[in-house]
C-alpha cells in the first residue's frame, strides 16, 4: 500500500483542504502503519501543548544586574590585557624593524675583526689568571684544595636551599584533598 501523500500530510502539519482531509481519514482507517504514526504525533502534540511553561527562580533581574557588573569587570580586565598585548606586539615589531634596518648597514669585516680582537683579549686575561693561580699555589700549596672544598660547600648549600624552596612551593600550591581535614 502506498503511504504517499498521506505521510507527507501527517508530518507537514499544514492546513489540508476538505477533500484531502477526507482522503486522509479514509486512508488512516485502512492503513495501520499511518494510523500508528498519526497517533504518535497526536500524543507528542498533546504532551507538548499541555506542558507547563518553565519559569526562572525569583530574583532573575537582580541576578542579571550582578552578572552585568561581573561581565563589565571581566571586560575591563580583558581590555587591559589586550592593550598590554598590543603594546608588546608594537614594541616587538619596532625592535625587529630597527634590527633589520641595522643589519643592512653592518660592516661584516669590521665586526668580525672586532670579535676576534675581543676574544684574543679575553683569552689573554684567562691566561694571566691561570698563571697567577699557579704562582699562588707554588707559594701556598694548600690554597687549591681549600678553594675546591669551599666551592663544593657553597654549591651543596645552594642546592639544599633550592630544593627546600621548591618543596615549600609544591606544598603551598598543592590542592587540599577532599576530606583531608
Amino acid at each position: 500500500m502506498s503511504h504517499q501523500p498521506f505521510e507527507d500530510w501527517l508530518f507537514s502539519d499544514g492546513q489540508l483542504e476538505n477533500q484531502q482531509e477526507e482522503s486522509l481519514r479514509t486512508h488512516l482507517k485502512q492503513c495501520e502503519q499511518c494510523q500508528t504514526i498519526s497517533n504518535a504525533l497526536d500524543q507528542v502534540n498533546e504532551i507538548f501543548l499541555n506542558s507547563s511553561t518553565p519559569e526562572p527562580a525569583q530574583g532573575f533581574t537582580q541576578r542579571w544586574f550582578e552578572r552585568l557588573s561581573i561581565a563589565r569587570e571581566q571586560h575591563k580586565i580583558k581590555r587591559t590585557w589586550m592593550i598590554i598585548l598590543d603594546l608588546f606586539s608594537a614594541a616587538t615589531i619596532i625592535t625587529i624593524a630597527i634590527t633589520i634596518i641595522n643589519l643592512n648597514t653592518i660592516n661584516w669585516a669590521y665586526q668580525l675583526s672586532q670579535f676576534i680582537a675581543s676574544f684574543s683579549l679575553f683569552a689573554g686575561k684567562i691566561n694571566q689568571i691561570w698563571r697567577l693561580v699557579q704562582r699562588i699555589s707554588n707559594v701556598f700549596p694548600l690554597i687549591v684544595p681549600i678553594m675546591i672544598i669551599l666551592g663544593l660547600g657553597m654549591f651543596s648549600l645552594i642546592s639544599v636551599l633550592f630544593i627546600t624552596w621548591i618543596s615549600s612551593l609544591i606544598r603551598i600550591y598543592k590542592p587540599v584533598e577532599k576530606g583531608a581535614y
Partner: protein
Amino acid sequence: MNEDLRWINQALQGDDNAFGILVEKYQKPVFSLCYRMLGNAKDAEDAAQESFIRAYRHLKKYDQTRSFATWLLSIASHYCIDRVRKHHLETISVESIPAEVITDHKSPNPEKVLHASETEVLIQYLLDDLKPTDRAAVVLRYWHEYSEVEIAETLDLSVSAVKSRLYRSRRTLADAWLSAEKTTMTKRRHHESPAF
C-alpha cells in the same frame, strides 16, 4: 512595542535600569526557550542571563523596526544551539522514563493525571533526539507559538528550510515516541506474572 522602544533608547544612553525593565519583562520567554533547549534549570538560567548580557552589549545592532522579543529569542536560540553543539549535554535514556508516563498519558481516565516532573523527563527525552537547530524550531513552534515565518526570522533560515526542519523533526519525534512506547510495553511485560 512603543514602551519597549522607550526603554531601549534609554538603555542605549547607558541606563542599566531601563534594560533591567526589559529583562524583567522578557525573562520568562527567554528562560523557557533556554530550558527546552538545554533540559535543566541551572543551564537555562545561565544561558538566559548570558543572552540578556549579549543583547545589552549589542543593543546598537538591534533593528527597531523588528520585534524586540523575536530579536531576544534569536540571540538566546543561537547561544543555546552553540552550547548544545559545543558541550555534550546529558541525554535522557528511554529506561529512565517511568512506564506510567506513556501508558497513563493515553488513558482516557482524567483521574490519572501525569506528574509534572515525569512529563518533563518525557519531553526532554523526545527533544534530545533532535538536532540543535531543529530543536530550536520545534521549541519556537510549540512553546512560543511562532509561525514558520517568525521561526525563519529568529533562526536566520529560509521559510522552506524551516518547513523541512519541522517536517524532519515531527518524523523524529513520532519515531522517538513509538520507541519509548515499545520499551515501556517490554518493561511492563517483564514485570507481569506469566500466570496472568
